[in-house]
């Protein structure tokens, strides 16, 4: 299936379908449902320098065609990942990408540095867009100067493929995208969740412990698609598109809008086999339209 192969910087993917951080655990949780080696890549759960307990329960509210979450980057820290989780997943025949987050520029850089020499981690995704942490996270991704500052610091210590995950909670995502590109990022992934909230009217209280949280699922797809299209027209580096993808048709929409690869997120909860269905659906689409290389489809929206 050579026609499905794409490249993100120096990272070669067997197909453009990846799974999004925070929705796919460390991959192994899905091994009962699908053959993980059929995926282009797996972005594992957001990882920070130190252990994080995340936010208090309740952390989730269902919405129309989506959900809000306020997990807050619960994870056991990068050293635990390397010592305890990595050995269990390193032999999965796909690209394992670690999503890296932090509260300070130094934390981001240190976390990235510890992953730099791990053999079977060919790339990291820098999360400057988590809306659920008090310090850092999205704060870095909502101004051009702080976004540039984090990427600059990480780029100095991390020489493999560097993907930067952008926040949609900004006035003009292309400004951030250009600033990140200028600092040497190899790729941009977008969008992270949209800031939202939900209220229990009987109790007159917010449903989430943090009041606000990140909205994801099919409801955000049109916003995500628009941002991918805008960003595609503003930068030269490859884009990984995501936001509400729940079918191969959604994936092709993102590719036509300018995404070289895509990530499937929240819909993994609804259908844990959706990622391989999307791989098959894209392959059928190429066949049906007589397209010999998926790269010829990227950004080919006819306007």
């Amino acid at each position, binding site marked *: 299936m050579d026609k499905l192969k794409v490249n993100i910087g120096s990272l070669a993917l067997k197909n453009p379908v990846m799974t999004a951080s925070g929705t796919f655990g460390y991959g192994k949780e899905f091994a009962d449902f699908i053959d993980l080696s059929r995926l282009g890549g797996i972005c594992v759960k957001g990882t920070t320098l130190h252990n994080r307990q995340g936010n208090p*329960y309740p952390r*989730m509210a269902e919405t129309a065609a989506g959900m809000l979450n306020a997990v807050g980057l619960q994870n056991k820290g990068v050293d635990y990942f390397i010592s305890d989780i990595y050995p269990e997943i390193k032999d999965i025949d796909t690209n394992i990408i670690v999503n890296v987050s932090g509260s300070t520029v130094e934390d981001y850089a240190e976390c990235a540095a510890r992953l730099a020499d791990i053999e079977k981690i060919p790339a990291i995704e820098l999360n400057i867009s988590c809306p659920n942490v008090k310090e850092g996270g999205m704060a870095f991704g909502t101004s051009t100067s702080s976004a540039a500052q984090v990427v600059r610091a990480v780029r100095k210590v991390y020489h493999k493929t560097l993907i930067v995950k952008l926040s949609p909670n900004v006035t003009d995502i292309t400004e951030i995208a250009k600033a990140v590109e200028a600092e040497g990022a190899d790729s941009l992934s977008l969008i992270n969740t949209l800031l939202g909230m939900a209220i229990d009217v009987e109790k007159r209280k917010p449903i989430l412990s943090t009041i606000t949280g990140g909205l994801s699922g099919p409801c955000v797809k049109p916003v995500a698609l628009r941002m991918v299209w805008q960003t595609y027209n503003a930068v030269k580096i490859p884009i990984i598109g995501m936001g509400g993808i729940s079918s191969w048709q959604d994936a092709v929409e993102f590719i036509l809008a300018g995404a070289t690869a895509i990530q499937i997120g929240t819909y993994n909860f609804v259908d844990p086999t959706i990622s391989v269905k999307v791989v098959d659906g894209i392959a059928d689409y190429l066949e049906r339209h007589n397209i010999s290389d998926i790269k010829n489809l990227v950004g080919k929206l006819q306007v």
Partner: protein
Amino acid sequence: MKKMLDLVVVENNKLNQNYCLLKLSTPDKSVLPEMYPGQFVEIRVVDSPTTFLRRPISVNFVDKLKNELWLLVQVVGDGTRKMSEYKTGTIVNLLLPLGNQFSTPEKHQQELLLVGGGVGTAPMLYLGAILKESGFNPKFLLGARSSKDLLQLDDFAQYGQVYTTTEDGSHGQKGFVTNHSILENIKFDRVYTCGPKPMMMAVANYAHKNQIECEVSLENTMACGFGVCLCCVEDTKHNGNVCVCTEGPVFNIKDLKWIS
């Protein structure tokens, strides 16, 4: 091993205004995966535009002879309402089996009490059946608002003595389960409970005060059901926030922060 399976509705009994009992089997007569008391399934609800996520429902009973999985469904929103309308022959998609299970008592722990309230009585039926099968004689204590909300009493009676409480006194003793006289009259070795959180906390307090081993089954709001979204966490004494869907839903009360 977890599976994603299409099952067929073989029966859907409306038990009262708010509850239905869904009986599911395999469309091709293949044997249902092994399921244990305390485990749950995530059921996908199609044709309900407002229902996006799967609905976690505990295993009410597994009829091995008939190859049936029973799910007790309380109608609380659009998703469960849609389930209550499923006709015989409807195909539903499930993830199963999910979660851990209630632990088996030690041989010397002969006095077992299974306490259920509301839809929380659901896992107690299967637990009682398996305990009975293993040579124990469990006792059931079931609580509800009123007699019409006490469900499956005949089924429970097959596996042990049934005691009831109702808030309006229309069946059994009046009051909450924790007011029932058997809690004072019998020295239990082990208590299992599932139901509304205040009820479980009251049962946990009773068990703690009387130094009785106690397991509770939690129903924290969850999205995925298999440990990846990290939404359903419970704060535990030694391990911090853990997923109810994978580390639970069954917890020993000594691991929870419920009792100070």
